[in-house]
């Protein structure tokens, strides 16, 4: 007989004093006698860098990529000494034109950074209030490096929501110092202003990472899920028979609470929740049932259509005349953040039903409600009550009315002179007067017009051109049904392990990130066509924000959107929608993780080494084709400081500053080979850091070129050059004339083009040169 212990009916208490008394702890697989020390964080050389701590790195970048200034204005209008004219002169304070441009750029970057930082602070504080500061930051088992930017800059990892406060405290402190440098009589050197703009961009990176990290963990958004769901996109996906709540802006909280309220009430199917701009992207990350109307450029068109019963605005990129426009259709407006109060009464403390009644009865024009939960309730209740009343208002002027309005046109032509893209607005209106709406329709369905409304402001007969464009496009609205992959958040560590080597060695020809706003020169199709081009060529295509939506609004020759055609994996031929503008942090984050996971570079406090690694070895290129805002300026500048080049559309020249390399100056491209200690001849790779292209064709060729890096293996270089040559031949008709600069040895020559390239090399008296083993701008 075998004696066994009697079966216990009670689970053993492991929390009793017994264990404490023995001073031991239980762990799986081992008995330890004292608390296991946490993995020690390596403090790199520059944790929490102050304004000037990374100046030496900035100067290396600025030496190679000198700032190119294109002043908007010849004057400085900031202080009462002026106005001062700076054309060939200095201002009364001593500032010159270049320095003034740099100061303006720093101001723009700080505005953008403050927008993200303010947003992040709002999110973090609100989520801490809801969930507590100890709420764990956990991106699941596939993402160990949860905050690559924070780790690199702060020198430590955030493990709970409360830790994010420290990051924001630091960023806000730095922003305060940076802004103070813009005061009259402070910084007096353009390159130092640029160094400060880089620092502002880095703070922007940091705060974007904080914002997305907080919302991912606290709202349970996808955590690097390559199979994030395909969600609905487009005007035509909105069921106008239901009450419609539209969210505009960049803050997910009110939208999420609208979804929650509907869930709680069991009304998920009764109300349409949709969004424009980044709020749309983030709400669909929160709930697959929400819909994306489209990018920023849809804003006035959709408001004018009258479809939305309730318009909830939060912050950033919202039309400031949203209330005035909404009132025309009796849509109710709810403002939800301190950033945008719109002159509305603060009803945060008011009874929700009373607010609803006041909105319905027209006692108030709109409401400011700073509690997102209350926004959820008020928005839904208002939409439910308002929708039946507004049924007749969900229509635009009829076609006869458009023809009558168009016949008022006096042919002055100023509508097209003030149009940002010089669209033939007057011609379209004249055609409409003859009963032919095709030109107006083309402006709508081809997304040529982004409904800024400047034409209407200028029209001497007050012709509502945007409404006419909207109406003309309405016939096709029902067809505007697309799919977009919900924003997945960061790249997983395992994906980085898989692609790190191919990216650094050039086997994957590049990572191209299409991000940003919709100030496009020729409509959103341009972005989709560029994305398609690079997907077909085996690049990893990453996207966020309005750019992600524009890509979704295109169907290829098979009638599919690119999201349906390509998977969401961070790998060659993957179309990776990371999320909203704050998710851009994951683009730099992926590059940082390549340095850490693939190359074992320590992150903590080690900004310069990581940025140097990215600049010289990670073939990534950002594209902000329609960049318009100060946030986009801050994002691009932050990305640049990490060593990632960015291509802007032609409107990007109006940021007043670019960073251009000089391929003809060989001294600028010398590299330190850290392995051998030698200084060796380099190549213009990447050629520019911030570039504005004039059209899509030019941009496409430039993007391929900007993915070239000194560490490409001969095989990788062949692949990159094949793409560069192919695209150059496609759009320019020839092999590029600068190909010799990128051929280090004959092994780099793409086999298909060998004969033609050899001919060019002979003509240029080309000589082979050494491949660097460990290229760097830093000293050994």
């Amino acid at each position, binding site marked *: 007989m075998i004696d066994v212990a009697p079966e216990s009916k009670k689970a053993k208490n492991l929390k009793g004093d017994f264990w404490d008394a023995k001073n031991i702890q239980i762990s799986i697989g081992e008995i330890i006698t004292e608390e296991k020390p946490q993995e020690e964080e390596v403090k790199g050389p520059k944790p929490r860098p102050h304004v000037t701590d990374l100046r030496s790195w900035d100067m290396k970048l600025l030496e190679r990529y000198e700032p190119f200034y294109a002043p908007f204005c010849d*004057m400085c209008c900031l202080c009462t000494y002026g106005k001062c004219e700076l054309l*060939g002169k200095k201002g009364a304070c001593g500032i010159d034109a270049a320095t003034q441009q740099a100061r303006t750029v720093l101001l723009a970057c700080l505005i953008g950074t403050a927008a993200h930082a303010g947003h992040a602070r709002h999110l973090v504080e609100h989520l801490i209030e809801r969930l507590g500061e100890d709420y764990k930051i956990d991106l699941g088992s596939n993402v160990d490096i949860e905050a690559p930017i924070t780790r690199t800059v702060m020198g430590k990892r955030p493990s709970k929501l409360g830790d994010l406060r420290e990051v924001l405290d630091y960023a806000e402190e730095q922003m305060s110092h940076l802004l103070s440098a813009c005061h009259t009589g402070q910084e007096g050197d353009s390159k130092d202003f640029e160094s400060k703009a880089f620092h502002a961009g880095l703070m922007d990176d940091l705060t974007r990472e904080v914002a997305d990290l907080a919302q991912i963990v606290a709202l349970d958004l996808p955590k690097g899920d390559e199979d994030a769901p395909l969600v609905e996109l487009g005007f035509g996906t909105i069921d106008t028979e239901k009450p419609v709540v539209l969210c505009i802006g960049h803050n997910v909280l009110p939208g999420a609470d609208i979804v929650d309220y509907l869930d709680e009430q069991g009304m998920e199917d009764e109300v349409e929740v949709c969004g424009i701009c980044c709020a749309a992207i983030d709400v669909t990350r929160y709930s697959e049932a929400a819909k994306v109307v489209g990018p920023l450029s849809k804003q006035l068109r959709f408001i004018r259509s009258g479809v939305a019963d309730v318009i909830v605005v939060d912050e950033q990129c919202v039309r400031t005349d949203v209330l005035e426009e909404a009132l025309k259709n009796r849509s109710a407006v709810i403002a939800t953040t301190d950033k945008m109060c719109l002159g509305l009464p603060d009803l945060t403390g008011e009874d929700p039903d009373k607010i609803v009644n006041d909105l319905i009865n027209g006692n108030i024009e709109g409401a400011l409600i700073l509690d997102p939960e209350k926004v959820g309730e008020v928005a839904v209740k208002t939409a439910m009550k308002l929708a039946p009343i507004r049924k007749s208002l969900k229509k635009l002027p009829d076609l006869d009315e458009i023809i009558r309005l168009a016949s008022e046109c006096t042919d*002055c032509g100023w509508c097209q002179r003030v149009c940002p893209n010089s669209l033939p607005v007057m011609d379209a209106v004249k055609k409409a007067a003859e009963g032919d709406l095709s030109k107006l329709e083309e402006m709508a369905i081809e997304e040529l017009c982004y409904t800024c409304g400047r034409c209407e402001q200028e029209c001497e007969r007050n012709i509502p051109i945007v409404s006419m464009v909207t109406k003309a496009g309405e016939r096709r609205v029902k067809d505007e049904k697309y799919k977009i992959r919900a924003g997945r958040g960061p790249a997983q560590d395992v994906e980085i392990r898989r692609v790190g080597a191919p990216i650094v060695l050039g086997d994957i020809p590049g990572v191209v990130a299409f991000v940003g706003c919709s100030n496009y020169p020729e409509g959103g199709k341009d972005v989709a066509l560029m994305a398609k081009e690079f997907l077909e060529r085996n690049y990893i295509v990453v996207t966020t924000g309005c750019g992600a939506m524009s890509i979704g609004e295109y169907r290829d020759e098979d009638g599919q959107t690119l999201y349906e055609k390509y998977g969401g994996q961070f790998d060659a031929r993957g179309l990776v929608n990371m999320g909203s503008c704050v998710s851009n942090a994951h683009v730099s984050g992926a590059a940082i993780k390549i340095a850490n996971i693939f190359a074992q570079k320590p992150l903590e406090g080690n900004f310069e080494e990581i940025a140097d690694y990215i600049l010289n070895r990670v073939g990534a290129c950002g594209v902000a084709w329609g960049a318009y805002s100060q946030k986009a300026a801050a994002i691009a500048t932050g990305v640049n400081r990490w060593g990632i080049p960015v291509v802007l559309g032609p409107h990007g020249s109006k940021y007043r500053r670019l960073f251009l390399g000089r391929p003809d100056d060989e001294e600028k491209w010398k590299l330190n080979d850290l392995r051998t200690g030698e200084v060796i001849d380099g190549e213009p790779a990447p050629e520019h850091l911030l570039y504005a*292209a*004039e*059209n899509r064709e030019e941009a496409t060729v430039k993007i391929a070129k900007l993915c070239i890096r000194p560490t490409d293996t001969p095989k990788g270089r062949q692949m990159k050059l094949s793409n560069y040559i192919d695209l150059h031949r496609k759009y320019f008709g020839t092999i590029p004339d600068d190909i010799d600069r990128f051929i280090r040895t004959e092994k780099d020559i793409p086999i298909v083009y060998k004969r033609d390239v050899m001919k060019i090399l002979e003509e240029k008296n080309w000589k082979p040169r050494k491949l660097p083993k460990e290229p760097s701008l830093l000293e050994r």
Partner: protein
Amino acid sequence: MIVLNDRIIPWQPTVIAGPKQAILVTPETATMMIKKARRPLMVVGPLAKRQPVLEHVVKIIRHFDLPVVTTADTYRALSEAGIESEPRGIVEITNLLKDPSWEGVRGEGQHDLVIFIGCIYYIASQGLSTLKHFAPHIKTLTICRTFHSNADASFPNMDDDEWFRYLEKMYAE
């Protein structure tokens, strides 16, 4: 319809940058500027790819034997029309032009006059602003159908027919 006063304010009126604006030139004056220049350069943008603008541009280039830079993807159109050019982005050529030590398209030294045609209005305006501020060694002339206030000299705003007559006059003699 472009009335008299509208001819001499910028085509996109908000690009006015300050007190100094371009002088208005006729085709005759533009021709004289090119003849007087020692090292002129023609910069041709993508809006000049369509006919009949392209034909006028080709004739002007041949008439004055101008070295040419093509911006965006204009290179192909000009090449097919039998004109060799150097393809560069508009911001790249502007960047080179502001450097007094750049050797120029023909390697003979920095240019002293740059003639622009066919670049997208607002990016050209920004580039001209760069040259206005940071390239005092260069005169800029625009022969588009739109008035460019940031140039040193510009054709006025006009309609296509008048513009083609202007362009024709530049190579008619």
